[in-house]
């Protein structure tokens, strides 16, 4: 009980002041039949060294030393050491939502800086202080578009991360917000613009696309925006690989951008915690979900920051709020802020260019193997690409695993029409040697067959 700062004598003195004989007496208001009179059946107390051993054991069970080409919404990027040095400062780590502005200026100013950086990267006017992640952020963006337009229907590209689409479906289904999924062009891997146009009706609140999309292909945002806007629908652009913004044109034609900021220095950690963020045009601020930090002055004229426009939020508006979100991902947003500060103007561009180069080399090297073909070659891509193989994916994966390589994600679960297809990602952390080893493993089939 090393976390409890009281001696038996101190407890006794406190009980005496309260006027009870034991702490258990304080629980007399719980009817006797609901009192737990036994120990919880959970593991016994462990010492710190045992806890570390337990989790080291778990880490080892996962296997180690694998070269990874997994992306698909969770990206491996180098995390500068100072991110953890900063976010582990107790003043950031163990502080609450900055409702008391006078003693949370550190968090508030950092959020304001985060909001500014997200605006600069995405080309939007305002960004909120964070959402849970990219998937829930996308769902909230759809609801926001519905409030803005007074329309209920959404059109969602099939090239959006399949798990994001599932989350949007869960959110929408109970609010009478129907949606249509629009397929992609088999040649380009981009959303099919004719189908898109045909799917938009007078009741369409928004078109939602992801760019780079789930296949790694950059969508034609200006063309999509034109189609959506022509019919009075908003355009929401979801971005899962945020580092792409270092090289890819920001989606300035969008009305709402829903970004997953995991790539900005956040550990993959088996899928979370990550950091969603919604950015939008100034005119839509009041329909935005989530917290916002704003600049103001104190009574003496000093610059300071506060949480603002809270009349949108649940603690004020209750059932009429723009969202039920309360806790967000503040500390993860701080990680992203530190990351963007470390990389800075030049670093972000250089980093994105390295990703571009690595993915291009990996794609060429892998696709050069017999029986392997890369899809959607005419389209712009960032750091992910799809390979189609003659061999079933399971067989390829098995050979790659033998070489301690985690190959691309099997797409058959979501896109069976692509046949034996895998989604590969190469970032600045993938070495040429890893790519060549993966190519050799793909090629090994020939040797076996020969």
């Amino acid at each position: 009980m090393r976390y409890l700062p009281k001696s038996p004598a101190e407890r006794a003195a406190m009980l005496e002041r309260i006027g009870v004989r034991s702490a258990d007496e304080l629980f007399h208001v719980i009817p006797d039949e609901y009192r737990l009179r036994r120990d919880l059946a959970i593991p016994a107390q462990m010492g710190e060294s045992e806890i570390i051993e337990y989790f080291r054991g778990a880490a080892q069970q996962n296997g180690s030393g694998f070269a990874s080409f997994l992306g698909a919404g969770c990206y491996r990027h180098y995390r500068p050491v100072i991110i953890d040095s900063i976010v582990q400062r107790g003043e950031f780590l163990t502080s609450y939502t900055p409702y008391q502005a006078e003693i949370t200026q550190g968090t508030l100013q950092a959020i304001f800086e985060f909001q500014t950086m997200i605006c600069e990267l995405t080309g939007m006017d305002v960004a909120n202080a964070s959402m849970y992640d990219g998937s829930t952020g996308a769902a909230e963006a759809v609801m926001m578009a519905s409030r803005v337009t007074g329309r209920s229907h959404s059109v969602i590209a099939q090239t959006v991360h399949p798990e994001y689409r599932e989350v949007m479906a869960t959110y929408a289904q109970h609010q009478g917000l129907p949606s249509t999924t629009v397929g992609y062009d088999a040649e380009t891997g981009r959303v099919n613009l004719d189908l898109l146009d045909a799917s938009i009706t007078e009741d369409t609140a928004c078109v939602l696309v992801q760019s780079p999309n789930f296949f790694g292909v950059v969508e034609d945002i200006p063309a999509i925006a034109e189609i959506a806007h022509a019919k009075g629908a908003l355009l929401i652009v979801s971005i899962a690989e945020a580092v792409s913004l270092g090289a890819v044109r920001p989606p300035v034609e969008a009305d709402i951008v829903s970004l997953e900021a995991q790539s900005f220095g956040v550990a993959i950690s088996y899928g979370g915690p990550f950091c969603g963020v919604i950015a939008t045009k100034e005119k839509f601020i009041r329909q935005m979900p989530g917290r916002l930090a704003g600049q103001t002055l104190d009574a003496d004229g000093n610059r300071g920051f506060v949480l603002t426009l809270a009349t949108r939020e649940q603690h004020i508006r209750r059932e009429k709020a723009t969202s039920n979100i309360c806790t967000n991902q503040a500390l993860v947003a701080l990680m992203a802020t530190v990351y963007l500060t470390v990389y800075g103007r030049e670093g972000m561009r250089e980093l994105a260019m390295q990703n571009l180069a690595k993915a291009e080399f990996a794609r060429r090297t892998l696709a050069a193997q017999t029986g392997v073909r890369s899809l959607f070659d005419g389209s712009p891509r960032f750091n992910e690409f799809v390979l189609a193989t003659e061999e079933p994916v399971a067989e390829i994966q098995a050979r790659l695993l033998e070489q301690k390589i985690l190959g691309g994600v099997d797409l058959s679960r979501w896109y069976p029409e692509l046949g034996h297809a895998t989604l590969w990602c190469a970032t600045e952390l993938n070495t040429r040697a890893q790519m060549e080893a993966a190519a050799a493993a793909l090629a090994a089939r020939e040797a076996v067959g020969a």
Partner: protein
Amino acid sequence: MATETKHPVGAPTPRNTTLGKVRTHPTQNEGLIFEKSSPGKRAVRLAPLDVPEVDAATLLGDALRAEAAPLPEVSEIEIIRHFTRLSTWNYAIDLGMYPLGSCTMKYNPRVNEFVSRLEGIAEAHPYQPESLAQGSLKVVRELEQCLMEITGMDAITLQPAAGAHGEFTGILLVRAYHESRGNARRKVIVPDSAHGTNPATAAICGYEVQNLKSNALGMVDVAELERIVDEDTAALMLTNPSTIGVFESEIHRIADVLHAKGALLYMDGANMNALVGKARPGDFGVDVMHLNLHKTFSTPHGGGGPGSGPVACKAILEPFLPTPVLARRSDGALGWNYDRPQSVGRVRAFYGNYGMFVRALAYILANGPDGLRQTTEDAVLNANYIRASLEDLYDLPYKTASMHEVVFSDRRQAARGVKTGDIAKRIIDYGFHPFTVSFPLIVSGALMIEPTESESKDELDRFIEAMRAIAQEVDETPELVKNAPHSTRVSRLDEATAARKPILRWHPVAG
């Protein structure tokens, strides 16, 4: 640029003035990081590219970004100083008592941070083969089992990312359950003492919110509940202990009233820190509830997140849990089961805020059954100690026994023109984070104090002294309290202008 109030040249800086447990200490001024930027400075060096360079314009065409985003250009030492200086402007649990009611600001053990960053855990990818994720899955399994045992429930999902997200998931389960029986029903009942997230959640799940007035004790008026529950009622969302820190002792009758009409009992687990190891919601009639790992199970609040909001439920709701659910395969391995035809669907990509699962499990393992029980007892002991030490000076609107938090009102101080918000600002000068102000709404001018188990008797005594001193100040020098805080870097901020003319990002100064 910011205007800074200048200290008169030559005037002595006040020193060694101690108030309670604090003495002033200089903090450094620090502008926005953008204001430190200068072209050519950098804090990063990438490894040399080991593959051929590419022509981005060829690869990306029109999709190429024309101009680099104007992110700050600074060096590493400037970044460390920048954020370290900002950090010194924050109050935190690590500095002292943080009795923010309903938020359970307890100690965040550092071993939790350490184990969540172990390489094989922090770098596990959600799509790596299950055979290479058995360690990650074992942690999920162990935490699920601990939480089911603690809550007395039959099934659980760890997917929701925070408490409100858990509420959303829980109410979707309720909805799916009713739908499976032919009718989703129309309304959700929410007591007037509830957190704002409860009605907001019911609304986004497509339910009409019916308000339930609390009785004279601040508790659920069971007769009134009985009157309004009908076949159109999907559920009651109840916080227990309630937001005034009181255990709903008629909880089982409440459950019976609901169940008699086929409605379900949802419990907001925000106040679970009052119950762990002492009573289990599953034993007193709750059908579905969420937990806040960032409250009860010590994962850090981090300035507002990340949280994690597991939802535990009875077997009748299990078929509707979000996909995927963790299952044990015939060969003994753990794996995700996606074949869940009655599921409400996904509520988040991947499997939830996994890093928080690791921390929460580390906390449970550090405590064990006896430690968790002692933790709960200490949390309740601390709240009652504060109550016993302050109720002669502060109005206690509800005399019912307190659990883990105590709610006073500012009635006596308001008579002298001092409001709960003023008292909150003044306690900052004494070196404490304020209590929760003006919530719950059923108490006019509420002071909601939740000390948690993490406070020593000494720290509690300092807090009590400070609150007693403020009560005296209200009588003798009310202006001192009304203009507080006096010791912070910034004085009271102009929130009205911030909302009327929002400045939500920095813009470069022209020229």
